[in-house]
C-alpha cells in the first residue's frame, strides 16, 4: 500500500496539507456583513467552513491511516516512506558559490509522522468548537486558523528540510496574529515573546540547515542522514567531530525552544495565558509536538553520534523539565495570580519533559512511550485548555481563588474535567498512563537514577491537579456565582456545559479512554519505525566509536 492516493490527480498528503488554504480563500471571499443579521450569517459561514474543512481533513487523514502500512519503517529510508509525493520545486543551476540549488516538494509519512498527522487532524477539528465564541474580526480569525493548520500539517509531512523549514515558519505568522489580536490583556507582550523566541530557535535551525546543505549538496533529509553522502571536505563530515556536536546542539536548541524544555520555556506560560482558548488548544495540542517531532525526524537521525554523546544531558534536561515544570505548576497555588491556565501551561512543560526522558532512553519502550506521550499530551492538554476556556467564558476569571463548589452547578462539566485531570495525572485506564509508564520503563533501563527522580513528577502532578480540582469544584459555591451564568439566557441557557463545548470535549475524552484501554491503534503504527529508529541511532552512534 505504499502507492500514493490521488484525488483529482493530486496526492492525498497535498490535499490534507493545502485544503485549509482553500478554506481560507473561501472565507476571505465571503464579506463580513454590514448589519447585525448579515454579520451573524457570515460568522456562521466562517465557522461551518472551518469546521467542514478541518473535518474533511480529518476524514482524509483517516483514509491515509486506513491505507497505512504498519510494517514499513521509514525514518532514514526513502523507499519505505509512504504516500510519497515528490516533484522539483525550485531548481536553479549554475549559481556562484552554491552550484546547483535544488529544492524538492517532497512529502511522505512513516510511523512517526502518522500519529502526529492524526493528532493534528483531531485537535484542529475539535478546536474549532472552542473557537465558536469568537466574534471579534471572525473572518481574520478563521482565515488565520486555517493557515495555521496548513503550516502544522506541512511540518509533519515534509521530507525536504527546506520545505520543512518553510512550513515551520509559515505557522509562526498566523500564530503571532492569533495571539496578538484575539488574546488577553497582555497579548502583545505574549505574541512578541512567542515570536522572537521561536524565531531565535529558527535561526539556529536555519544555520544548521545551510551547513548541512553545503555538506550534502541537497536539502533532502535522507541524504543528510546518510553519512556516505557527505562531502568529505565539509566540516560536518565524519563522526564524532566537535563541529557535528555544535551543529547538533544548535539544532537541538532550535527544536527545544518549541518543545519547550527548561530553560527555554518561559514563552509558554505567557503565550498560553494570553492566547484565546482554541489557540491554547492548538499550541499545546500540536505546536509543542513539532519540537520533539523535529528532533526525532531531523536532529536524531542526522547526528546519531552527537545524540549518544549528549544523551545523558538530554535525559537530565527531561528530568529537570518534569520536576521543574511540576513545581512551577504547583507554585501557582502559593504565589502569583493563581491562574488555572498558567498552571496547566506549566504542566505542559512537565509533561513534555516525559517525552525528552523517553527519547533519552533510546530503547523501544522509551521512544514509543515518548511518541505516544506526544500524542496523549496533545489530546489531554487540549481537553484541559478547552475546559479552562469553558469556565473562563462564563466567569471571566481564571483565578482559582474565585471558584469552588462548581460540582453542583455543573455536574457534566465536572465529570469531563475529572476525566481530563486524571488522565493528566496518568491514571491507568486513560491514555496518559500507558505512555508515562512506557517512558519510565524504558528510561529506567538507561538511566535508573534520573528516572526515579523524575518519578517525583508523578506525585507533584497529582498534587497540583487534585488541588485545582478541589479549588474549582469542591467546597462551597462562592456567593457571586450562585445565580445563573447568564441571567438573560441568551448565551448560556443552562449553567452546565453546552453542546458545542461538549462537541469538542467528548470526542477527546473518548480517544483518551479508548487509547487507555487499547493503545494498539497508535502504538501499532509506530513500532516498526521506532525499532528502526532506535537501531539507527544506536548503531550510528557506535559507528563513531562511542
Amino acid at each position, binding site marked *: 500500500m505504499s502507492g500514493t492516493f490521488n484525488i483529482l490527480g493530486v496526492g492525498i498528503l497535498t490535499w490534507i496539507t493545502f485544503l485549509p488554504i482553500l478554506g481560507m480563500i473561501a472565507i476571505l471571499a465571503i464579506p463580513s456583513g454590514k448589519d447585525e443579521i448579515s454579520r451573524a450569517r457570515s460568522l456562521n459561514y466562517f465557522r461551518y467552513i472551518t469546521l467542514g474543512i478541518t473535518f474533511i481533513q480529518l476524514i482524509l487523514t483517516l483514509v491515509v491511516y486506513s491505507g497505512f502500512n504498519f510494517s514499513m519503517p521509514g525514518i532514514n529510508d526513502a523507499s519505505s516512506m509512504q504516500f510519497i509525493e515528490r516533484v522539483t520545486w525550485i531548481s536553479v543551476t549554475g549559481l556562484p558559490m552554491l552550484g546547483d540549488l535544488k529544492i524538492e516538494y517532497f512529502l511522505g509519512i512513516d510511523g512517526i509522522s502518522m500519529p502526529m498527522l492524526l493528532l493534528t487532524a483531531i485537535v484542529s477539528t475539535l478546536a474549532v468548537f472552542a473557537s465558536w465564541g469568537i466574534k471579534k474580526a471572525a473572518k481574520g480569525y478563521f482565515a488565520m486558523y486555517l493557515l495555521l493548520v496548513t503550516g502544522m500539517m506541512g511540518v509533519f509531512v515534509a521530507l525536504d528540510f527546506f520545505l520543512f523549514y518553510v512550513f515551520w515558519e509559515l505557522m509562526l505568522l498566523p500564530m503571532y496574529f492569533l495571539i496578538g489580536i484575539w488574546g488577553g490583556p497582555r497579548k502583545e507582550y505574549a505574541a512578541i515573546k512567542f515570536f522572537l523566541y521561536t524565531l531565535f530557535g529558527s535561526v539556529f535551525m536555519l544555520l544548521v540547515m545551510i551547513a548541512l546543505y553545503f555538506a550534502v549538496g541537497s536539502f533532502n533529509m535522507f541524504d543528510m542522514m546518510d553519512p556516505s553522502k557527505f562531502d568529505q571536505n565539509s566540516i560536518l563530515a565524519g563522526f564524532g567531530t566537535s563541529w557535528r556536536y555544535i551543529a547538533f546542539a544548535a539544532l537541538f536548541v532550535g527544536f527545544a525552544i518549541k518543545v519547550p524544555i527548561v530553560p527555554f520555556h518561559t514563552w509558554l506560560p505567557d503565550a498560553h495565558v494570553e492566547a484565546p482558548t482554541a489557540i491554547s488548544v492548538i499550541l499545546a495540542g500540536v505546536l509543542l509536538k513539532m519540537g520533539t517531532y523535529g528532533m526525532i525526524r531531523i536532529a536524531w537521525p542526522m547526528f546519531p553520534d552527537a545524540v549518544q554523546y549528549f544523551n545523558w544531558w538530554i535525559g537530565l534536561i527531561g528530568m529537570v523539565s518534569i520536576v521543574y515544570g511540576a513545581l512551577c505548576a504547583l507554585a501557582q*497555588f502559593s504565589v502569583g495570580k493563581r491562574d488555572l491556565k498558567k498552571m496547566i501551561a506549566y504542566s505542559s512543560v512537565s509533561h513534555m519533559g516525559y517525552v525528552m526522558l523517553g527519547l533519552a532512553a533510546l530503547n523501544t519502550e522509551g521512544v514509543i512511550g515518548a511518541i505516544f506521550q506526544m500524542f496523549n499530551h496533545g489530546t489531554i492538554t487540549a481537553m484541559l485548555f478547552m475546559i479552562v476556556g469553558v469556565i473562563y467564558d462564563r466567569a471571566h476569571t481564571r483565578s482559582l481563588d474565585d471558584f469552588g463548589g462548581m460540582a453542583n452547578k455543573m455536574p457534566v462539566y465536572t465529570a469531563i474535567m475529572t476525566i481530563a485531570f486524571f488522565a493528566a495525572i496518568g491514571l491507568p485506564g486513560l491514555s496518559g498512563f500507558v505512555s508515562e509508564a512506557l517512558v519510565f520503563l524504558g528510561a529506567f533501563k538507561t538511566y535508573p537514577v534520573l528516572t526515579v527522580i523524575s518519578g517525583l513528577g508523578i506525585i507533584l502532578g497529582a498534587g497540583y491537579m487534585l488541588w485545582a480540582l478541589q479549588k474549582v469544584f469542591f467546597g462551597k459555591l462562592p456567593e457571586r456565582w450562585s445565580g445563573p451564568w447568564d441571567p438573560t439566557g441568551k448565551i448560556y441557557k443552562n449553567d452546565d456545559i453546552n453542546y458545542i463545548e461538549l462537541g469538542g470535549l467528548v470526542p477527546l475524552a473518548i480517544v483518551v479512554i479508548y487509547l487507555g484501554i487499547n493503545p494498539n491503534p497508535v502504538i*501499532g503504527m509506530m513500532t516498526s519505525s521506532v525499532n528502526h529508529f532506535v537501531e539507527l541511532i544506536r548503531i550510528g552512534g557506535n559507528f563513531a566509536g562511542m
Partner: protein
Amino acid sequence: MSHDLLLKISVVILFLPLLSFLIIVFNQKRLGKAAGIIGTSILGIDLVLAAIVAFNKFVVYPNEAIIQWKFHWFSLGNRTIDLGLGVDNLAAMMLIVVTLISFLVHLFSTEYMSEDKRFPRFFSYLGIFTFSMLGIVLANNLLNMYIFWELVGLSSYLLIGFWYEKDSASNASKKAFITNRVGDLGFFAGIMIAFFTFNTFMFDEIFSQIRSGVLPFESGTILTAMGILLFAGAIGKSAQFPLHVWLPDAMEGPTPVSALIHAATMVAAGVYLTAKIFPVFTADALTFVAYTGAFTAFMAATIGITQNDFKRVLAYSTVSQLGFMVMSLGVGAYTYGFFHLVTHAWFKACLFLASGSVIHAMHHAMHKLHDHHSDPQDIRNMGGLRKTMPKTYLTFLFATIAISGVPLTSGFLSKDGILAGTLAFGNLSGHWLIPAMAFISAGMTAFYMFRLTIVSFFGDFKTEIASKTHENNTQIVLPLVVLAILSLWVFYSFNPIDASSGWFAKAFKPVETVVPAEYQFDFMMPYHDAHATESTEVSHGSHSYLNKFEEELHHQHYTAMFLSLAIAGFGILLSFIFYYYKKVDPDKVANSIKPLYLLSYNKWYIDEIYQKTFIGGTILLTKLMFWIDTYIIDGAVNGVAFIWRIFGTFVGKFDNGVVDGLVNLSGGVVGFSGSIVRKLQTGRVQTYLLLSIIGVILLLWWLF
C-alpha cells in the same frame, strides 16, 4: 469446571461491577432510588459467581498453584506488554471477601444513604470501586496490579470526597490520593526494576527467573531494594507507617465506604500484594517489612487509646491490625497474615457498619431534636446505647471480642498465629523487639476496643441525643449479623484454639521463598531445597514442615496463646476498671503522664511534622522555583530584550539625528510641495479635468 470456564466466570465477576457503574452513572436522574437495587442485585450475582469460583478452586483444583490466563495488551515490535488474570487460593478467598463485603455494604447503603441527594452516584462509585478491587485480586502480574491499584486509588478518592461540600472531606480525599501516590511511586520503581531485570510483569515468570538465579543488577541488595520498593505500594495502600496518615482522615467519607474500603478491602490490598510477592523478599526485606508492621501496629494502638471520635478509634485500630498482618508476613507467618486479613475483614467491617448504624441513629436523633451542632460521632455524646440499639450493640460487642483475641472467635485464631510467628521469629533471628511490640499492641487493642464499647454502649445516656436513638431497620442490621456470625471460629477451624489443623491453614500453606540462600534467613529456606519436587510428595505426615520457621512456629504456639490470652485479658480488665466500674479516673492517669498522653492524643504529631517538613518544604521549593522562573530565567530573557532595546534606542537616536535628518530634509521638501499640491485636491471632477487638460498641453509641449 474447566480452567477455561473458571477464568471466564472470573472475568464476568470482574466486569459485573463495572457494568453496574456504567448503568448507574449514565442514568443517575432516571434511576433514582432504583440505583441501589440495581447495584445491590448485581453485587449479589457477583457474590454467587465468586462463591462458585472459590468453591471450584478449593475443592476441584486445590493443588494447582494458580489458574491463569495471559494475553498481549500491546506490542512494541520486538517485545509485548502482557496482561492477564489468574485465580490462586489467595485470589479465590479474596473474591469471596470482596464481593461479600461489597454486597453487604451495598445493602447497608440502600438505607444509610437513602436521604442523600446523590444517592445513585454513590452506588456507581461503589461499583467502580468493587471493579478495581476485584482487578487487584485477580491480577497475576505486577502491571495489572498497578493499574487496578491506581483505579482503587481513584475510587477511594471519589468516595472519600463524596461529600465534597465539606472542605475536610475534599482535603481528606486529596490527601489520601497523594499519600498513596508516594507509595505508588515506590511500587512503580519496584516494577521498573522487575521489568528491567526480567522483561516481564508476570509473578510466576519473575519467581522462576529469580529461582534460576537471575537477580537485578546481579545483586542481592538490589533484590532487597526491589522487594522493599514493591512493598512501598503496600505501605501506602495499607496505611503503614510512615504513610498511614491518610487513613484516619479518610473517615470523612460516608461510613459504608469506611467499612468497605478503609477497613475490609482496599487497605487489605497492600497486605494482599505483600502476600503475592512474598517469595521475592530477602532476609533484609523481610526484616524491614516486619519492623514496619510491628511499629505501625504499636504506634496506631497507642493513638487509638485516646481518640474520642467513634470512627477514628476504629480507623487507628484498622491501622494497627494492618500492622499486625504486615508484621506477620514480615516474620514469615504467611498463613496467619493472610488469615488475619480475612478474619479482620469480617469483624472490622462489622465494627464499621455498626458504627454507621450508631451514627445513623444519632443523626436521626439529632434531627428530631433540631440539634445541628453536636458531633454525632463523638463517643462522649453517646453512652447507654445498649438499651436503645440492642442488635447493633450485640454485634458490635461480638466483633470487639473478636478483635481483642478472645477464644472462640476468628480473631483469636489468626492473632494467636501471628503472635506465635513473632515469637518464633524473635527466637530464631534475635529480633526480640518485634514480638515485644506485637504483644503490647495486642493488649492495647483489647483495652481501647473495650473502652470504645463501654463508653458508647454501656452506662447511662450521656446526652439527650443518645436517649432518643433507636434501632435501625433490617437493611442495616442484617449485614451486621452476617458479619458477626462470620467472626465465629467454626468457619476456619473446628478446633477453637488451634487454626493449624483447620481447612484454612491447609489451603494457604506457606509459600517457598525463591531468593537464593545467601540472601535469605536460613530458617526460611525450605528443608527439601536440594530435591524440590520429590519432597512435596513426601511431606504429608502430621509433622511435616516447610522449613525450620514453621517448625518453631508450631512449637511457640502454646506459649503465644497463653501470653496473648493473659495480655488481652489484662487489657479488657483494665478498660472495665477505668470505664465501667470507674475505679480509676482516666483523666487523672492522663494528667500524670501528660507528655505521653499528648503524644498519643495528637497522633504522635506526625501530621504536623509532615505539614512542616514535606508539605512546607515543597511549597517553599515551588515558590523558589517559580521565583527563579519569573526573575532569573524570564528575567534573563527580558533582560536581553531590554539590552537590545537600549541598543535599539541608541541606534534609533543616530538614525533620527543623522540618517533620518537627511531623509526628513527630502521629506520636508516633498511635504512642502505636497502642501501646495494638496490645494489642488478639491475633490471636484471639474478641477481634475482642467488639470488633466493642462497636463495634456504640457505633454504636447514637451513632445513637440
